[in-house]
């Protein structure tokens, strides 16, 4: 495979996309479905990507739009079912050194407690490391909206998972 090819570059992005999918999704199975759907959509939409522009922002945007399309409709029902377990998990004292992999479940549960518009901003900036301006462009939002969503989202997260 040509290292500069679209497919190769997309392959390199895959771990990051998978991470973003986990930040958005309720569980790992949903996250992997979302990652797969994003790859398929990106490969099908290859012609729409303009070489010279950032492939990562483009692919993240595809994932975010797919997630909105597919996950929102079922999230209302799912949230009701999931609440008791998640509520029990969030905020439990980690007690000593916590393995990051175990912590993932707790963090995913906490992220799920955020409203969607806060969750995506928190994921893109605090986890994926995008700058504020990049996120404004990716989500087509003004700076004020992005930064206030980020404030609310991270403040709530800290209240849920804050270390004692």
């Amino acid at each position, binding site marked *: *495979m040509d*290292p500069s*090819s679209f*497919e*190769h570059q*997309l*392959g*390199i*992005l*895959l*771990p*990051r996309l*998978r*991470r973003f999918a*986990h*930040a958005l999704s309720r569980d*790992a199975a949903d*996250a992997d479905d979302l990652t*797969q759907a994003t*790859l*398929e959509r990106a*490969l*099908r939409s290859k012609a729409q990507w303009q070489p010279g522009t950032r492939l990562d922002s483009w692919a993240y945007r595809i994932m975010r739009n797919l997630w909105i399309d597919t996950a929102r409709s079922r999230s209302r029902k799912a949230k009701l079912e999931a609440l008791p377990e998640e509520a029990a998990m969030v905020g439990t004292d980690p007690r000593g050194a916590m393995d*990051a*992999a175990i*912590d*993932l479940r*707790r*963090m*995913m549960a906490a992220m799920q407690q955020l409203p969607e518009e806060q969750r995506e901003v928190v994921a893109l*900036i*605090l*986890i994926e490391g995008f*700058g*504020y301006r990049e996120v404004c462009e990716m989500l087509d939002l003004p700076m*004020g909206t992005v*930064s*206030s969503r*980020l*404030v609310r989202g*991270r*403040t709530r*997260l*800290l209240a849920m*998972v*804050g*270390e004692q």
Partner: protein
Amino acid sequence: MTIADETFFAWLDGELPPVEAAAVEAEVARSPELTLAAQEHRAMQARLKAAFDTVADPPVAQRLPAAEVIDFADAQRRRESRRWGSPVQWAAIAATLVLGVLTGSLISPLRSGPVDVRDGKLYAAADLNDALNNELASAPAAGASVRIGITFRDQSGAICRTFTNAKSSGLACRDGARWQLRGLFGAPEGQKSAYRMAAGADPNLAALVDSTMAGNPLDAAEERTAKARRWR
């Protein structure tokens, strides 16, 4: 807080221009409350990132520490090829390719060589297709470039066969009149024995066979019968 929340966090995230950042920094240093908030939020972000970073290492790569997944066409084009530079690179590609092969939905740029793409699925072609159609593990042809390992049926009843050539080993299952590739694994560099080892000895291939096979592998007589029935 004496500073707006948005400004405080923009400072924390390194988003403020230098002059403004210095002003906020001084303000934070004067305020125990703000200093604590900065510490807590930094710790929370680090923990958040560490937790989610665990899924950025694709599990495929974790399961394939010593092998790489390659595509035949590429291997053919660059017979004396360079190796993938960084493990992260090939791990990512491995994840993509395996994901695609497993779901049959990755649109691959392969157009020639022993792998053919139809409707987004990968199929054996050329030598590989011939070997899967004609070779018997019980009676390997002398000098064949592809060696057949075991033959078995999957849960749907389709015949599957493992194969090995000089650079890779894999699993193909019957899909109509063709052999669809279910997995393809490259031999670690310098491991010439990959060609000789019994198919399935590659741990990754063995795991794939394990999850695919229903019942037992065909014995020599059953293999001949299956061939006579054109692998149906």
